């Protein structure tokens, strides 16, 4: 018997976007500012996922300027419109769409003024990357000049918007309800190597395919998947907050073991885009869904490698070794059970 054994497993998953089984809402203000820059104010703060960059991209795209020209105001209940919480895989969906709508409104104010100034129709106007032009004409100026013209005509290009996601509550008896308007799906494959002497499991590869609706920043999406996978790996193999009679025995990172650089598999991301029909941006989300299938994919891979099914997380070396010790008799039992099962199936098909 070779000491190390390899195997592969997979798991699928699904997830809902934004707050669950309730209506969700987010507001934003937008202003096209001097120099062709913009101010966006909304109740959002980066929790690490890259939302500020996503919002700057969204605003820039709607306003016809560059992301680095967008200033996003601080999240402050006294100074910015409500956009509620940073969680529930809702920031790109809820705040992204409200910023898109607010920016669109500010741009339309500008377009109206410039169309009038140029004596063209507003729907002939396009703006991108710091320039504005009118289709089928030679008219083209910088967004900086356009804002100056607009303001010279006495108008500040402003917009505001509120975006709603229509989740409904669950029936208290049978749970019937439409908790989300957008769903995402994911599938991951894991490849593991199990050391049958030490019980140690290494995850060597993860293939993670996730639907995100529309990837606003693909690199950011990958970052979320990679982070989610490694948190999932931690939960699968090593992390455990332990209490004894309510007192923790894992009171620091020396006892509470986290994945480090040496534990990380090669993570191969596949971004699938199934656009959301219910929202202007068509994007959905990835923050939470990324880690849902990781642990079951790893457990299924461990089974493939050594024929031991871990049903109680985490799959520590101790658990693996214990299961391996019971393995041979176990295997015998499984084989017998399978044979009986097949016999039963056969009987049924015969009757």
């Amino acid at each position, binding site marked *: 018997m070779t000491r*190390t054994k390899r195997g592969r497993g997979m798991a699928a998953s699904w997830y809902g976007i934004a707050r669950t089984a309730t209506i969700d809402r987010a507001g934003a203000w937008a202003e096209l500012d001097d120099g062709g820059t913009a101010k966006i104010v909304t109740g959002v703060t980066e929790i*690490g996922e890259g939302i500020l960059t996503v919002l700057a991209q969204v605003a820039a795209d709607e306003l016809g300027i560059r992301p680095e020209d967008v200033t996003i105001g601080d999240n402050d209940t*006294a100074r910015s419109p409500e956009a509620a*919480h*940073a969680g529930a895989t809702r920031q790109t969906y809820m705040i992204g769409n409200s910023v898109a709508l607010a920016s669109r409104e500010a741009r339309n104010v500008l377009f109206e003024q410039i169309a009038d100034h140029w004596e063209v129709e507003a729907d002939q106007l396009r703006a991108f990357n710091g320039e504005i032009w009118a289709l089928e004409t030679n008219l083209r100026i910088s967004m900086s000049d356009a804002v100056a013209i607009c303001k010279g005509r006495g108008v500040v290009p402003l917009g505001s918007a509120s975006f709603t996601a229509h989740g409904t509550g669950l029936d208290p008896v049978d749970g019937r309800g439409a908790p989300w308007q957008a769903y995402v799906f994911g599938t991951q494959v894991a490849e593991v190597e199990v050391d049958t002497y030490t019980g140690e499991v290494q995850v060597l590869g993860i293939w993670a395919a996730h639907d995100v609706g529309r990837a606003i920043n693909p690199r950011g999406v990958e970052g979320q998947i990679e982070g989610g996978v490694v948190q999932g790996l931690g939960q699968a193999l090593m992390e455990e907050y332990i209490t004894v009679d309510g007192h923790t025995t894992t009171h*620091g990172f020396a006892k509470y073991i*986290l994945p*480090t650089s040496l534990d990380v598999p090669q993570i191969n991301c596949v971004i699938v885009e199934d656009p959301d029909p219910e929202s202007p941006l068509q994007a959905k989300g990835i923050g939470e869904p990324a880690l849902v299938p990781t642990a079951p*994919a790893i457990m299924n891979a461990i089974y493939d490698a050594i024929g031991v099914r871990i049903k109680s997380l985490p799959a520590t070396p101790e658990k693996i070794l214990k299961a391996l010790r019971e393995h041979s008799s176990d295997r015998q039992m499984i084989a017998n059970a399978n044979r009986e099962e097949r016999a039963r199936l056969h009987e049924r*098909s015969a009757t």
Partner: protein
Amino acid sequence: MPKMKLEMEVNNRKVVKETDTHKRLIDFLREDLNLTGTKEGCGAGECGTCSVFVDGKLVKSCLMPAAKANGAKIETIEGLAKPGELTPVQKAFHKTGASQCGYCIPGMVMAATACLRENPKAGIEEIKERLGGNICRCTGYTKIFEAVEIARSVVAGEAPAGVLDEDEPLGESYIGHNVRRLDAPSKVTGRLKYAADMKLPDMLQMQVLRSPHAHARIVSIDTSEAEAMDGVACVITADDVPGKDGFGVFVHDQPIMARGKVRHVGEAVAAVAAEDLVTARRALSKIKVEYEVLPGLFDAEEALKPGAPVIHDYAPGNVVKHIPVRKGDVEKGFAEADLILEDDFSTQQVEHAYLEPEAGVAYVDADDVVTVISPSQNITHHRHMLADIIAKPINKVRFIMSPVGGGFGGKEDMIYQGMLALAAMKTHRPVQLNFTREESLIASAKRHPSRVHYRMGLKRDGRITAVEFSMLSDGGAYGMSSEGVMRKAAILSCGPYEIENLKVDTRAVYTNNTPSGAFRTFGGMQAQFATESMMDMAAEALDLDPFEIRRINMMKIGSLTHTQQALKTASLDRVLDAAEKASRWEKGAPKVRGATRQDLDGPDTRKSCTLGARIAAEVSGAEKGQRSGASEKTKDSERVA
């Protein structure tokens, strides 16, 4: 406090300062020199966020007494590049998107810099080893490796410096374009101020007295001696709450500080605001609390038994929330099944382990607005709750969200902002509270540990005819997000499969364990771990490929979900195809076929670490004060073997 005079060269400038003798190098840098790019993630040498160079050697500044660095040459994250510039390592982190919350990033940049200074040609294995003492909870390390490899190629002269500035060409839209993270430059240089990095004039430091008992009645609290101490500005307890005490994401069952009884170890009982941290800590030891210990409840199943201790009077059966989902007729579904599988699954309690421990600042402004700055994930809801608690109109309460050094759901609970507000109101001075790692671990919510009993009926062709799913979760001492977590777990329970007949129940109960709350996936992970294990067990029994059995049952457009919502879109078919193709999956039933598979060990996997290499890594890591989860596990397993 005894003082000492320190002389050092810090970031090429001579520094001469008088400071307290007890200070560690990290304190001296952060408090005396305002070099807050050096972060304190653990204070115990285990996370690497505090890494600096001392005489050219990478050290963890939380482990070094400041006095020991006297006369040394110190380099911190702020000193790597001139203001406005970035080093190749910092540029590479910016380019690849290697920073997310950013809290680990100064330490990571220091470790990566050390790696390339010592070996400008370091390969990926060496890079991984040298970063082994630095924890990142956000990125999964992958983009960090990519950044260090790019920086290496530039430093080693294998690639022109220009690659660090190159980006892919812009197409017709910024949507779908890999715009570099706008917040990265402030994170890779350590310039971004998190709540613990903020300083306001005249600011007090808060410390919290926490319960040593899991379940006890508070007979009395005597704060008089602490209050009389020099340097103590105020002591607060539940008695200082002017309004209706109670917070929680769903049910408001948790007081700002323990009221009448404590329900878990680490629960806040009283807090002190003082001129400095040391005085605040000393004052804690002068607070006298008399407890009458009550029988504790530490197991979710025990919680449901008649006669179990009652944790909250409003919930005599200890149930926080039960969510039922019913569809079709399960009895009929099982009767139609050719195969019935039944099993149990469990998941453990998990810590968020964001690298930034909880921190915050509160003050009362000139308009009498009580203002709290903290990395809260839900300032809107916190404002509503705090207004009731301190009996103020809602526009007299202001929450400002500071940059969040990792949250993952763990910063949705208002577990300390109320204490800060009360102390600011009582003193009319700014007050700051920074948790230690140990405090964060015992006082903040965790992922719900869960037990699932599962029954699945299938036809011979792989179609699921019925599922019975019952989950019991330990919610711990307070409700926090338990209700929502149970709801999401129930909705997602049986996975992305259209199942005609199902009976799902999820329950969370109160115990005297550390509370469980929101954690990335909000119950979805625990539920689907069970479902996806069952799917493979069913596939084995029915001799089906795991992708195949999922395709047979998958939700499609128009499918009715478990809560009987008709889906307008569904992409499971495409993600299954994508994962199968990308992984070059070899078809076959999951019957322990690892030994014969032909799709293993491809170019898209990493090399396995050999045990020897890992022990070597651990030894050299130990020399450097480093540690890795992998080698820790190896030790454990050897003990067992």
